[in-house]
């Protein structure tokens, strides 16, 4: 894979999008960026990563923060901007990578080598996955799903000109419930390889 390849994977909570992204990165030998990028950012900022974690992919609190020109005192927005710069820097350096969330399909939209994917899933399938993964009962799992999806949607829509999960703005939207994680990875890898060939 000599040419640069950038793969952004957005996902609904419980759809397995993160696991899918991780497998694709491993199979294709690409760097993988997710929440772990905070370690590098925290190190650069000389702050504890735990301080940043609670603001990761979070929308701004519009009652407690304000923007003046290009300045904001919302930690969530400042962290978003730092993450966007981080993603852009990695892409500018010529690195190929898979990135989960963080509005990457918007941040990297000017790159021809970007493949943007949105992973969704059936509600029941996602629910079972969340219950199992986090050892929750149905009510708590549903609440967790709703909370995370709302947070991701608000975060995305704040930083992007289009709506989170709107199929018109992704190269590919896929329901992971139909084929499961492994089957979805196979389909996506086939698509990615075809795209890379077409791009070359």
């Amino acid at each position, binding site marked *: 894979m000599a040419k640069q390849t950038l793969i952004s994977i957005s996902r609904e909570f419980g759809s397995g999008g993160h696991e899918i992204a991780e497998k694709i990165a491993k199979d294709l030998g690409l760097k993988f960026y997710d929440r772990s990028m905070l370690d590098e950012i925290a190190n650069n900022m000389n702050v504890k990563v735990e301080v940043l974690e609670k603001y990761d992919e979070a929308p*701004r609190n519009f009652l407690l923060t304000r923007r003046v*020109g290009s300045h904001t005192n919302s930690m969530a927005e400042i962290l978003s901007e730092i993450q966007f710069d981080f993603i852009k820097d990695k892409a500018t350096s010529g690195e190929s990578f898979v990135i989960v969330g963080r509005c990457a399909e918007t941040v990297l939209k000017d790159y021809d080598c970007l493949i943007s994917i949105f992973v969704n899933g059936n509600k029941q399938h996602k629910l079972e996955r969340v219950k199992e993964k986090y050892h929750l009962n149905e009510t708590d799992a549903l609440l967790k799903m709703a909370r995370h999806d709302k947070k991701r949607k608000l975060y995305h829509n704040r930083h992007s000109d289009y709506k989170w999960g709107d199929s018109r703005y992704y190269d590919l939207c896929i329901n992971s419930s139909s084929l499961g994680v492994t089957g979805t990875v196979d389909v996506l890898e086939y698509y990615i390889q075809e795209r890379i060939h077409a791009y070359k």
Partner: protein
Amino acid sequence: MNIEQILAIILFVAMFILIVMDKIERHYVTLGCGILTIIGVFGIAMKSMEAITETLNIKSIFTLGFWYTAGNAEESTSGINWATIIFIAGMMVMVEGMAKAGFFRWLCMKLAKMVHYKPIPLFITFMLMSAFLAMFIDSITVILFLAAVTIELAKLLKFDPIPMILSEIFCANLGGSATMCGDPPNIIIGTSLGYSFGDFITNTGIMAGISLILVVIYYFVVFRKELAGEKLSQADVDAMPEPKEAITNKRDFVISCVIFFCAVVLLVTHAQTGLTVAFIGAVIAIITLITSGSYALKLLKQVDYKTLLFFIGLFMVVGGLEQTGILEIIAGYIGTVSNGNLRLMVAIIIWVSAIASAFVDNIPFAATMIPVIKSLSATQGVDLSTLAWALSMGTDIGGSATPIGASANVVGTSVATKNGYIIGWGKYCKSAAPATIIVILVSMVFIFIRYC
């Protein structure tokens, strides 16, 4: 309440909510609501062409009194306050020119060197410098440069910059309250009510001066442990950059210093010369542009036109409240509550302004309150200037209490946070809220003693 009043209130409240939500850029919000005020309130509900022309207020620009007032300063009519807009635009051009020449960075580095980079003198010097600069330059620019240099010094000298940044922010807001041109609410109050630079400096200026002494002592006491812990080595001092390195171009630097000096002299003497702030703003901008040569176009492009459009829209929306008599109703309510007691009126105005400004933008608040105090003064027979100084101190200082209260707070905390020095609500309010209460109390007592 009639239909035009209801419509004007809805548009005003919608504007405030949309500004707070920050989903749409605030200049689009105020302009949109302003246009709706013109069409809906004045055009459809009131069917009053007079209200439209009064609010747009364009013809005032073409009067002599707009640029030059022989003798007493002239009060602006209601509607768009073009004098404020032209003055702010002019100062923006001047400040861009100064920043390009490296003036602010040079000044910060020079003062730091003069006090040998020692933490406590540095802390006090930067507070005083912040207050002084903010008397003439917008507090956003002051804090932008001061916070950046403070962080740079903190990294080189290995100290915690947060106490310094917090105190600089407070002093920038305090310094802004001292003069007519320091803070947007003061510019609006001054141009709307016909007060001069001298009027402000001899009233709010004295209150700010007394408060500054108390605030320096307060912040020193609050942060004494952090400051006492900072130790400097000679190697740290030797590693500091030379102030002259900040100057990007000597010619531009000298010119920007001269223009700044001229601006200060013109502002200080404008009551004597009869030149209005609109004239001073326009002249300063033209001189800056002429001396910038080929850079003039770029300088013009860097002007924050969004803020100017925000002001235009804001004045239109407030014009809606004014023309429909809403603000007179509010003034009447304050008059009833205070029962003609000037002290009570002052207390209500200063504390309501301070509390409101701590949470919402103080510019729309001040613009709204000016017609209220005018009406209050006329109906209750109390001195307008007393109410104006209460409004000025309330809006200017109240904004210091929280990280969202004033633009300088947002910019200062933003610059600090981006550099890894996170300032949340708790850390900010712990020192700034008591300082705000102290200054508001001092100002209120001062007004009581001197004017009531």
